[in-house]
Structure formats: structure tokens, C-alpha cells
């Protein structure tokens, strides 16, 4: 292994990522735009932090269908969390509280999922089986997410190749976390039960940039269907990352796509550095078999310390455990991510599993910062019979938490001799990742016995196929051909008006460029003027473009017509021009300009007057021609 393989973020090139075997895949969660939730009839998309009541629950691991306990489940059980759910009467019913069995799967949501699965070119599942995917962190009060696979084996065009889609799932969304302090975790339940689709790609993204690029394509693709929700939290992706010799690590809930490159870079670096750490341990003769560590209580030894966090803990009656990692000297300072060292891996586990959430939650003898005095370290070293090659780690908490923290440190340190442990990690604001939980396996899946299998009939598939929107890549290619400005192509392709655009251009033969600009840029301009552009809805736009088609409105007058209709809340187009009206206006104009002797000046002045009173109702060229004709007579 090459320690210099990982360069600074800005210096990493495609070849560098290839050298470390970077691979990434996406699991994209996207809420669907439905009126109601997936398994109950609560309204979808109503969010509020206000709540009327709270309930308290605990989670216990259960056996999988094949008779095994899931690792994550056992980990969450170790944490002994009290889970508090905040209940708002308007957004939550007894289903979300897990006091009522599920109602039938929301048909609207299933239709949307089936439509998107077809856009991906997936093989559709003939008979859906609802599964329970266990989540013992409490994010769902049942302890599991109801989920089903709708399609498998699809793909989308990507970077001159095809990016395979492993599966498309339809599932219910989880709670929003409010806080997680000590042994209490609080959730808001409003988002719980919202229908969402999960798109899982193959791990065939080979640079951090490709991962972000693919996420963007999916985001645009699903938005272009008009079937999904937009806004904060409506789309979140889990990003899987691995390097050669590493492990598939899942970075959970990345809501900002621009964060993906740095996160995946840091995660790949972490794995690379953990492999280097293992190499160093092997050099020191430490393998999973020879690994040695123990822990002892040392409260008495440090009760007079001047290191404040520890002193305060002891004053509060907490106890201090010392973990001795044999032969680890210096390795807790081993770099893992940008400005992050191996000690953080231990601290994360202690925070999550032993619920010691106040930081710092541990100190160690490898540290360069001021903690215990060297005489205190020495007295502990003597007392626990450690030597200079060992690293000492101190954790503090109540008797149970301090012991589970010590055990967890031993577990994580042993894993360092094995390589990269399977985990899910959270995305941190600085672009690094932090431990979230052990990566769950297929053992957490269990068939949902509350609902029967659901047959997807050929009729249903056919009905959805007929109404399928055009895939975004086809739309964009066509827009290019039409010569639509580059900055307009993407917004138009994902816009809800893409279908209206197609109709206006293909069937009504309106100018493509003008129509595109009107649909994408005019609303922005009007919003800047403070107009309520929400009222610029499909029926109004359709009526305006129909007026252009029917020559009741000149394309030049569109922006003004939009503005007038939003401002005055009335239909902006006056009745069509009667044949005598133009003649009368021309006559008026000529009369008003009688004094002008210069014909060209008079022509200009007349046109100004005519267009002012007939703007949008008459074609300028036609008026000019008629005026010229009269003037010359």
C-alpha cells in the first residue's frame, strides 16, 4: 500500500482515484408528490415543529425471517435509548404511532413509482411483497420501515455509458430527529409515513465528481416527471463508498449534492488510512488474534486531576475507566480523514453506543493536547501495568455507560487490526464522516405479515406506460436541436411545463426559443417584481400560449400579459382586433402627426402611437405596412 496515494483533494485526478480503487454507488431517496401518506390517510407534506403530545417507546431486536439477529439491531439495543415521539394531531394518526395496522398501500404512490421504474427501464415486479426493514434507532415507531421493491435492473445514460440501477423501492419515510442527548432521543413524526422511492445504483461511479454528477442527473430526472416533491429534505441520498481492500461504507442522508465530492473523498481517504493503520499494526505484530486490550476502573487515581472535564465528571459521581491498548502507542494520532485522527473513531463509537454525548468523551495518552499531567499518566500506567508501547484511553460516565464505553473502545480497536469495519456513517458539515451505526445486512428484512402481496396487473402497467413523461435525456437532446439557450435547457427539462412546451412547439408550432424563455425566465423576472408567480399555473399558461397560437396575442406581448394577469387578476388580452379598428387607429395617428413634415419621422411617431394603443393585439409589421400604404397615398 502506498501511503502517498492519497493526495490533497484538489490534486486528486481520475487516475489517482483509479489507483486506490475508488468506487461509489448511490441510494437516492425521493419523496413522491401524493396527497396522502403511504400506508395511512394522513395528509402528506404538512410539516410543523408544533406538537400536541409525546409518547415514549423502546426498541428490542427481533429475529430475521431466516432466524438471525441483525448486527445493527443488537447495537441499538446496547444503547438503551428512550425514544420520544412528538405527535401533532393534524399530521399523525394511530398508524404512525404503531397503534393501528397499516391501511392498503397508497395507489397514487405506487403508480408514480411504477412510472419512474419504467423510465429507468426496470423489470417490474409482478407481485409486490411488503417487507419490514428494521431500524432500531427509533426513527420509525414500529421499529421497521415498510418497504417494497417495484422494479429491478434498470439503467440511465451517464457519461457516454449506462449507469446500472439495481432496484427501485417504494417505502415510507422516517421521523425527523430533534435531538439525541444521553439516553434520550427525540423525534418529530410529521414526515413519518410519507411515500418515497429509493433508487439504488450499481457501485459504478469512479470519482467523487461522478457520484455528484449522477446524483444531479437522478434529481433532474425524477423532478422532470412532476411526480415528486421538491424542497428541503424532499430528496436525500445515501452514498456508498469503498476503496480496494476497504469495505462498502454507507454515508447516510446527504441532502446537498454539492457536498458529495468532498464527503466521498474523505471517506475513501479514511478507508485508505485505516488500511495503512492495519499495515502498521501488522508491522508491530498486532493481528486480530494477537490483539490485546483490557480495561480497569481508575477513578481514584485521577480524582484530584486539574483536567477540568474529568474533574467535573468525578465531582458528579461518575466513574472513570481506563482502556489499555497494548502496543498502540502513537496510533490514536494516526490520520484518518482531513484533520481527523483515529481517536475520533473511538470517540464516535463511545458517543453513539454508550450514549456519552458530551464531548470530549474520552482522552488518551497519545494526545498532544493538554489533558492529564504526565505524572498522572504515569501513575495510571503503573497502576494498570501498562508499558511505554501501550496507549491508555480514559472514558467516564455512570457505571453502566463507562463500562459499555470501555468495551466498545476495545471492540473498535480490535477492528483496526481487521481493516475497515462495516458501518453507516453520517455526513458532517466539514465534509468528513462520523460513525452512525453498524451497517445492517439482509438479516434485518422481514416480510410484513399485516398486508397481503399485491399483484401489479398488466393493465395497470399499460395505463401508466401510456401516460409516461418523456425521459429527461431525450428532452434535453431535442432542446439542443431546437437551439434553446444552454442556460434554459436544464431548467426547462425538469420544469413542470416541459409537456406544455412540447405541445406548444410540436402541435401549435410556436417559436421554441421564445416559448422556452417565456416559460423559464419570465416567471423569474415577474417574481423579482414581487408578483405572485404561483398563480401562473398550467391553465393560465396554456390559455396564454393558446392566445399566441390563435394570434390574439403577439409573442412579444407575453411578458406584459403575464404581468397584467398577475397584477390585476384578470384575463389580460383584450378582444381580437376588429378590421376597422386598426384603420381608425392609423387615421387617428396620422391626424395627430399632421404637423410633422418629415415622412420618416412621422412614420416613427405614428407607429409609436398605434403600438401603444394596440400592443399585443396587432402584429407590428402588419401595422407598419398598412400605415406606409396610407402615408404614401
Amino acid at each position, binding site marked *: 500500500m502506498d501511503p502517498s496515494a492519497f493526495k490533497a483533494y484538489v490534486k486528486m485526478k481520475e487516475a489517482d482515484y483509479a489507483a486506490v480503487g475508488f468506487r461509489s454507488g448511490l441510494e437516492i431517496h425521493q419523496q413522491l408528490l401524493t396527497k396522502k401518506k403511504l400506508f395511512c390517510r394522513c395528509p402528506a407534506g404538512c410539516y410543523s415543529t408544533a406538537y*400536541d*403530545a*409525546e*409518547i*415514549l*417507546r*423502546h*426498541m*428490542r*431486536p*427481533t*429475529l*430475521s*425471517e*431466516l*432466524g438471525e*439477529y441483525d448486527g445493527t*439491531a443488537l447495537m441499538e439495543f446496547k444503547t438503551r435509548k428512550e425514544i*420520544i415521539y412528538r405527535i401533532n*394531531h393534524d399530521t399523525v394518526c*394511530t398508524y404512525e*404511532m*404503531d*397503534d*393501528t*395496522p397499516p391501511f392498503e398501500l397508497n395507489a397514487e404512490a405506487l403508480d408514480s413509482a411504477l412510472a419512474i421504474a419504467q423510465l429507468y427501464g426496470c*423489470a417490474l*415486479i*409482478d*407481485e*409486490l*411483497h411488503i*417487507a*419490514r*426493514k*428494521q431500524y*432500531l434507532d427509533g426513527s420509525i*415507531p*414500529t*421499529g*421497521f420501515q415498510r*418497504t*417494497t*421493491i417495484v422494479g*429491478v*435492473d434498470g439503467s440511465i445514460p451517464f457519461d457516454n455509458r449506462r449507469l446500472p440501477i*439495481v*432496484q427501485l*423501492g417504494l417505502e415510507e419515510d422516517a421521523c425527523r430527529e430533534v435531538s439525541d442527548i444521553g439516553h434520550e432521543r427525540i423525534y418529530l413524526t410529521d414526515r413519518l409515513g410519507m411515500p418515497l422511492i429509493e433508487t439504488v445504483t450499481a457501485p459504478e461511479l469512479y470519482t467523487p465528481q461522478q457520484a455528484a454528477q449522477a446524483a444531479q442527473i437522478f434529481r433532474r430526472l425524477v423532478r422532470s416527471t412532476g411526480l415528486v416533491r421538491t424542497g428541503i429534505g424532499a430528496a436525500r441520498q445515501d452514498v456508498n463508498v469503498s476503496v480496494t481492500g476497504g469495505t462498502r461504507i454507507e454515508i447516510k442522508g446527504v441532502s446537498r449534492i454539492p457536498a458529495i465530492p468532498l464527503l466521498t473523498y474523505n471517506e475513501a481517504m479514511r478507508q485508505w488510512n485505516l488500511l495503512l493503520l492495519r499495515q502498521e499494526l501488522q508491522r508491530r505484530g498486532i493481528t486480530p488474534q494477537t490483539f490485546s486490550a483490557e480495561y480497569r476502573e481508575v477513578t481514584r487515581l485521577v480524582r484530584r486531576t486539574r483536567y477540568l472535564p474529568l474533574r467535573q465528571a468525578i465531582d458528579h459521581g461518575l466513574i472513570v475507566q481506563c482502556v489499555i491498548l497494548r502496543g498502540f502507542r502513537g496510533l490514536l494520532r494516526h490520520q484518518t480523514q482531513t484533520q481527523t485522527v483515529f481517536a475520533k473513531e473511538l470517540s464516535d463509537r463511545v458517543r453513539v453506543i454508550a450514549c456519552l454525548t458530551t464531548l470530549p468523551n474520552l482522552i488518551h495518552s497519545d494526545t498532544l493536547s493538554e489533558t492529564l499531567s504526565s505524572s498522572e499518566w504515569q501513575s495510571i500506567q503503573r497502576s494498570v501495568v501498562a508499558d511505554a508501547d501501550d496507549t491508555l484511553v480514559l472514558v467516564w460516565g455512570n457505571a453502566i455507560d463507562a463500562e459499555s464505553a470501555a468495551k466498545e473502545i476495545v471492540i473498535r480497536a480490535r477492528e483496526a487490526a481487521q481493516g475497515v469495519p462495516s458501518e453507516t456513517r453520517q455526513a458532517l458539515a466539514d465534509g468528513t464522516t462520523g460513525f452512525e451505526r453498524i451497517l445492517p*445486512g*439482509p*438479516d*434485518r*428484512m*422481514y*416480510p410484513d*405479515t399485516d398486508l*397481503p*402481496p399485491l*399483484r401489479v396487473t398488466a393493465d395497470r402497467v399499460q395505463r401508466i406506460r401510456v401516460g409516461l413523461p418523456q425521459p429527461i435525456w431525450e428532452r434535453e437532446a431535442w432542446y439542443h436541436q431546437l437551439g434553446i439557450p444552454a442556460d434554459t435547457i436544464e431548467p426547462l427539462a425538469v420544469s413542470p411545463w416541459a409537456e406544455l412546451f412540447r405541445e406548444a412547439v410540436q402541435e401549435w408550432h410556436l417559436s421554441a426559443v421564445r416559448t422556452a424563455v417565456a416559460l423559464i425566465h419570465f416567471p423569474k423576472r415577474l417574481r423579482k417584481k414581487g408578483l405572485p408567480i404561483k398563480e401562473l399555473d398550467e391553465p393560465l399558461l396554456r390559455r396564454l400560449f393558446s392566445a399566441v397560437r390563435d394570434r390574439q396575442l403577439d409573442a412579444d406581448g407575453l411578458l406584459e400579459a403575464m404581468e397584467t394577469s398577475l397584477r390585476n387578476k384578470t384575463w389580460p388580452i383584450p378582444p381580437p382586433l376588429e378590421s376597422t379598428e386598426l384603420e381608425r387607429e392609423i387615421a387617428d395617428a396620422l391626424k395627430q402627426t399632421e404637423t410633422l413634415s418629415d415622412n420618416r419621422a412621422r412614420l416613427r411617431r405614428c407607429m409609436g402611437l398605434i403600438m401603444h394603443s394596440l400592443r399585443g393585439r396587432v402584429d407590428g409589421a402588419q401595422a407598419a405596412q398598412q400605415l406606409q400604404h396610407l402615408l404614401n397615398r
Partner: protein
Amino acid sequence: MSAEKFKGYRGAALHVLRNFDAPIWSDVQITAHGNRFTGIILPRSETSDDLHVVIKLRSGYNVGIAAESISDIQLQGRREAHYHIPEKAFPVDPQKPRVKLLGTGGTIASRLDYRTGAVIPAFSPGELYGSVPELADLCNLETEKLYGVFSENMGPAQWRGTAEAIGREIEKGVQGIVIGHGTDTMHHTSAILSFMVQDSPVPIVMVGSQRSSDRPSSDAALNLIHSVKTAAESDIAEVMVCMFGPTSDVYGLLHRGTRVRKMHSSYRSTFRTIGDIPLAMVSREKITPLRRDYRRRRHDKQVHINTAFEDKVSIVYYYPNMQPDIIDALIDNGYRGIVIAGTGLGHVNKPLYPVLRKAHEHGIAVYMTVQTLWGYVQMYVYETGREIMELGVVPAANMLPEVAYVKLGWALGQSSDLDQVREIMLTPVAGEITEREPANGYLILQGGIPEVEEFISRYRK
């Protein structure tokens, strides 16, 4: 044999599995619609159609593949599921009380049934210890599976068997008894056991769960802990139901067996004491009595078991426009007792009068209860009530309809003399009739009212 090999499959689906010789639990690659699906063939629920083959994909998801679309099945191996809860010998501590858990079924411990796709009960002390190790802190637990039935299938034979098993255990000197039971008819069984088992020296605690134990959020473990704690430590020597107090995982309530009823089809806190307050609250830490008028624990092994029961008893839920033929049918079929759940204070319509008189003349014991559940039968207030009593219908005070039903069966099992039956029926044995209804015995808080909303915002109910 073949049925086991292709468990649950019929018709087209069975045909295709046979064709490719792909029995259940085969690890396969199926080609269908030109796509490949890799996974394990699962047994099929018998109530599902015969058109699909179910496989568990590598991701853990199950999918059904249309049999007609399957063009190939490649066998790669076999992986049969062996579902068992990790079984560990229940530790014995001579300092701890002996508690016996009698199983009748229900979801207190359960596993998946592939035939029906539903959950079926699983039960053994080792399994229980494996999944709820906290029990070992409370007692030395022994278990015996009496029945494995859903609670709707509990009836007189099982009631008798359970009462006799309780008698045997008490004579053997256990310090408490827990009965695992499905929740639907738990209050019927708790009522009849209150009559069949009298003067118990130890607590007899019925328990179940509203969410099966195959769910992480199940109430089963906590209910079991609460009930075992009650059996081991409480001094309440009565037949009780021990189930969640609020829907939160906070405490359970101990309800007197004759005053309790399941009041919600799915809520955790479904069991409520009707027309009175519960006996006690129970948490992992402590048991808090809410009243003092209960029978105390004794240290003898004396108990009276009386399992008399007459099967030909019915319960009739009155509704407007009920026709006399309903009662006629009971008379014609040789019923010996009828409990009416009447409207209001205990009423039925006039067209039933002749047939009620006829029932009385046939020597059928007819008792009146109220379908309002709360409150007493009072047949003097209205003329109607007095007329009905003259027909021989006996008001059953504030006995709950289901309780009156099992008690009438028990009374008729002991005597066919209607006066003696009346004596048994109207003499309270286990709190089934109370002399008074306390003012806090009827509390159904109505959501929306500001003070109620304030209450539920403050307490985790």
C-alpha cells in the same frame, strides 16, 4: 412429501417449480421477462394466488414472479430457514420466587408461519429467556404450554383445562402464575377463571401483547416483565389482566379479571377497567396499588377449583327492530341461559316480550346487562323495564355482558334450579358486581377539549 417440498404452491406456480425441479429453499437464478432474479425460493402462503413464485432476493427483499413468465430456473444450492429464538437455560436462583408461565397461545411469543403468512406462537422458557433476559432478575421461571390457539378459539374446554392447571400449580407451591393469552378474548378468560379459581393464595396474571413479539416495538417483552414481576412480588392474590396502561412504554395496569375489557382493536393500552379503577400500576421498578380492597397473598397451598360450565348459554346484543325469531332459535336449540346486552338501563323492544316470556316458561335463565358497558341495569326507572322484569328477565346489576355470559354458564353448570342459579348470579364472587361505582370509574377523556389536550401534552399517554 411433495406438499412439503413445494409448500403452499398450487396451479401454475407449482407446475413451473416441478418442471425445473426447484423445491422451496432452493437458492436459484430465475429468468423471467428476460431478466434474472437471484435468491431463495420461499414457501407460499396458502391464501395467496397460484400464479406467482416468491423468492427472497440477496438484498433481503421478497418478490413474486409471475409463473407464466419464468423461462428458466438454475439451481445453485439450498438454504433452509431455521427460525429459532436463541435458547438459553433459564438461570435458577434459590432466593427467587417460583413463577409458572402457562401458555395458551397469542402473540406474547411468536414466529412467522409460512403457510398462512401470519404469525404463530412459539414458546419455551429458554426461548423466553433468550429474548427477554430481564425475567431472570425477577423469578425462577417454569413454563408449560397448555394450548397453542388464537384467543378466539379459547372455549369452555380450554377454560376448564387452564383452571385445573392453575390448581395443580398452586398445590405444587408456586408463588405466582402467569397465563399467556391472545388479547381478543382475554377478558372472557380472566372472568371465567375468576369464577373457576377461588381463594387463590397467589397472584394469577393474564398477559398478552397487542404488537407481536416479532416487531422491535412490541409490547410483549414489557408486558411479560410486568406480569412476571406481579406474579413474583405482588401481594394481590386475584385473577388479573396485566397490560399496557398508556401506549407509551412506561407502566402496565393490573385489572381485576371481572371488570376488564378490551376496548380498542389495535391500541397497546386497549384493556381498561370498566366502572371502577384498576387494582394497581406496575413498572419494571415497582408495583403501586391503587386500591386496598383486594385479596391478599397467603402462604398456604389451598385453592378451590370449580370448573362447572354449561355450554348452552348465549349472549344477545339487542338492536332496534330485533325480531323474536332470534330468541326463538335459541329456545328451539335447547339453550338454557341467555344474557341480553340491552340498550340504556336495560331495555328491549315490545315485539320481543312474548318470546322472552316463552323463554322463561321453557325454564331458560334470562339476564339483562347493558351495552353501554358503564353503569348499572336499572329496570324500575321506566315502565318498559318493569314490564320486561315481569317476563322473568333478571337484571344483572353492573356485570359486564361478557362476564355475565361466562358466569351464567358457570352457574348453570352447577345447578338447573333457576332460583339457585339466580342466587349464584347475583352474589358477587370476584368483584363482578360492585355495590357502588366511584366517580372516577367512568373516565373517557375527549380529545379536543382544552384541558384534556393540556393533560395529554403533559403526560405521555
